């Protein structure tokens, strides 16, 4: 799919740039209070514990609430359905005080609903079971209080409770509806489902029982599926949608030029890099891995591939909580790269291969740019272009030398990504690089049982510094998420967690 899209994008560039000047006024045929938002994909399921794609997650976050949620700037947790919470001094007991809130069918949100939802999220049927496995018991001393007791101290738990998979469902309505519940789910979030036309989009209407007074301002929202980037741009220009996510970067500037459309690039928790298989020669040698980090002109990649958006990365981790602002990226230094290679015994370079997912247009371009960059230090990389499923399976089985890849974070806490990208042994063995640092493993264990605060922050900073020096991958950049909206839209933004909160959006 993405393969086709990129073909299409490449082909239509010139056309779309020519178009903005000739746009007609938006039609007034639609109700004023309904925001029409173009997305790339249709959602798959509204069940928060089913394995979720982004479109599903974003929609679930509009329909359901969680006990706590990330603040808009994604730096801390703020109250959701829980108006306050307390963690015991030993870190083993979490108590939540629920606010007076109602589900969209008018029934109150009770502690029993919370217990039911969290148990479901931690059951075998849940794709997200691992996030809840640390909970020993869930008690409900009264209708407004929920108490979690843990098996052992597990600091990332609060963040996991702010995850979409921890959405609170109405137990009675769920049990009455059975399998059909998620066709038209009932939640306590700002919106509720009006209709879901599969393959076309999701119609949401305002939840009149929403607990935040006066919100949402919108009567509803249409999350429309427009898979092709140029089509999203054209729809935005024609006034057939009010906002669109994922604007082809080559059109971003031209789109904002006529003054009717505003564009932006959100800094989301995403990081792109080149994995190096440290089990294979020459990538078992730290100096080689460092050399490659010096060899790539990352600023140049931003300019050429991301049209100046995004940021150069200093480590495999995106800048999130506790990030060290003083940790500088590897400089572009060919001489140093060559010296390091020579020191490692590869004075004349070496031959290797670079695995690239053919379904990601950005990575296909990246593959070629990297090939050229490595050539300068005598490294010849053959590009192995494979489709996404094969890419994942190949890196997982360790049958690769270098692979272009990326990672995103579901939570605002670095724990999840650190576990995936840097810890070995863990579920991915440092994202299949097999890179291993005993100190990182030790800090990871410690960080998870240390209360949130500067001390835990220092641990993350040390982990990330170790990763920076140990170079399990060639760190490239943090690309943003581009989006655009018409001037009549107020308050629409893509958050660092990649989703959007429509309860704050107004239409003029």
């Amino acid at each position, binding site marked *: 799919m993405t393969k*086709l899209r990129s073909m299409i994008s490449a082909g239509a560039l010139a056309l779309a740039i020519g178009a903005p000047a000739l746009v007609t006024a938006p039609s007034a045929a639609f109700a004023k209070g309904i925001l029409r938002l173009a997305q790339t994909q249709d959602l798959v399921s509204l069940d928060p514990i089913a*394995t979720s794609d982004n479109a599903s997650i974003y929609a679930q976050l509009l329909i359901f609430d969680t006990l706590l949620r990330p603040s808009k700037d994604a730096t801390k947790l703020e109250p959701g359905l829980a108006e306050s919470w307390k963690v015991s001094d030993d870190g083993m007991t979490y108590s939540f005080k629920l606010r007076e809130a109602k589900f969209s069918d008018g029934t109150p949100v009770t502690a029993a609903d919370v217990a039911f939802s969290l148990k479901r999220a931690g059951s075998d049927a849940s794709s997200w079971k691992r996030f809840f496995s640390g909970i020993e018991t869930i008690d409900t001393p009264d209708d407004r209080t929920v108490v979690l007791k843990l098996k052992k101290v597990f600091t990332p738990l609060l963040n996991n409770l702010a995850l979409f998979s921890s959405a609170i469902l109405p137990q009675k309505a769920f049990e009455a509806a059975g399998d059909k519940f998620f066709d038209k789910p009932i939640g306590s979030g700002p919106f509720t489902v009006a209709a879901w036309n599969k393959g076309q989009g999701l119609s949401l209407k305002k939840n009149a029982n929403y607990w935040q007074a006066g919100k949402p301002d919108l009567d509803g929202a249409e999350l429309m599926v427009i898979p092709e980037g140029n089509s999203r741009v*054209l729809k935005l220009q024609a006034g057939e949608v009010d906002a669109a996510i994922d604007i082809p970067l080559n059109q971003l500037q031209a789109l904002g030029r006529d003054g009717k459309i505003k564009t932006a690039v959100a800094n989301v928790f995403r990081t792109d890099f080149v994995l190096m298989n440290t089990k294979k020669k020459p990538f078992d040698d730290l100096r080689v891995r460092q050399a490659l980090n010096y060899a790539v002109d990352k600023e140049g990649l931003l300019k050429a591939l991301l049209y100046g958006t995004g940021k150069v990365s200093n480590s495999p981790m995106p800048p999130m909580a506790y990030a060290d602002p003083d940790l500088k990226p590897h400089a572009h230094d060919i001489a140093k790269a060559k010296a390091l290679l020579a020191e490692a015994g590869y004075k004349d370079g070496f031959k290797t291969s670079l695995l690239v997912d053919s379904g990601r247009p950005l990575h296909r371009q990246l593959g070629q740019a990297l090939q050229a960059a490595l050539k300068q230090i005598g490294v010849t990389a053959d590009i192995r272009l494979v*489709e996404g499923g094969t890419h994942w399976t190949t890196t997982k089985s360790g049958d690769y030398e270098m692979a272009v890849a990326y990672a995103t974070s579901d939570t605002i806490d670095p724990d999840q990504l650190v576990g995936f990208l840097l810890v070995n042994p863990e579920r991915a063995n440092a994202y299949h690089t097999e890179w291993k640092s005993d100190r990182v493993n030790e800090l990871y264990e410690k960080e998870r049982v240390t209360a949130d605060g500067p001390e835990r922050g220092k641990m993350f900073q040390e982990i990330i510094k170790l990763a920076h020096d140990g170079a399990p991958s060639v760190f490239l950049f943090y690309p943003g998420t581009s989006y655009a909206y018409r001037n009549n839209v107020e308050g629409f933004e893509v958050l660092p967690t990649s989703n959007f909160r429509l309860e704050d959006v107004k239409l003029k």
Partner: protein
Amino acid sequence: MLIYIVKRLAQLVPVLFGITLACFLLLRALPGDPATLLLGARGGPEEIALMKQRLGLDLPLWRQYLLFLADIGSGSLGRSVVHARPVMQLVLERLPATLWLVAYSTVLAVAMTVPLALWSAMRRGGPVDLAIKLAFTIVIAMPSFWLGLIFVILFAIWLPLFPTSGYGDDLLSRLHHTTLPALVIALATASLTIRSLRSAILAVLGSDYVTTARAKGAGTGRLMGVHVLPNALISSISVLGAHTSWVIGGTVVIETVFALPGLGSLFVESIFSRDYPLIQGLTIVFAVLVVLINLATDLAYALADPRIRLE
């Protein structure tokens, strides 16, 4: 005739059987499985094993195949891994858009083909013939997404006659929404059928009975309508039939550009996520549709040319 149709439909059974087996085995030979891909970064060995067990992927292959056949027998075509719903339900949601696009574009293609081919043949070598030839050579040389986007810019932005994309809710709005995509497909089809119909007409025009009819004083209308067209249509019908079969599953690009909820994009997505039941189910649906279109093509022969007897 009826016996013929029944016979042809009965032939579907071994065809489908072969398709199920080939599709099943080819899928298992692909790297990657749905459980691993679905869990992605979250999947530790424990989670993947649990998911495989839930999906029945831990069973021996022959048992998985038998379960697949049982799913076909039950009419549900199995349960999609990604969507967690019966495949048949997913197909039925997407099928109308695909069939609509097939029907609409075929009608448009025929409506373009017959008059343009006639015109071209009658003015053989003249400016009209050359202009039609040139125009459709350009069309066939243009990738359909490109043509689609040009149409959107021309007829939805500059001259706002049609919406840029979408499917529409009722019949009228559906016609309105899908005219541009249907036109893009129809132009691709017509660029083939016009050529074939034109040369068939020219061949027929050279035959003795046309000379006879002319000698008897038949006017151009009668000559073309009664003597030439029916005899010339056969080859174009087979070209049209083959092209229509392609439209069933091959319009992913058009579906993507015009945001239409058809089967093509569902199929491509299912392959990327290795959604075995969905891929298998869709393959069967496509096979049935293609066989049915071929059957309709053969029936159309008999209608166009009474000399053809179907047995």
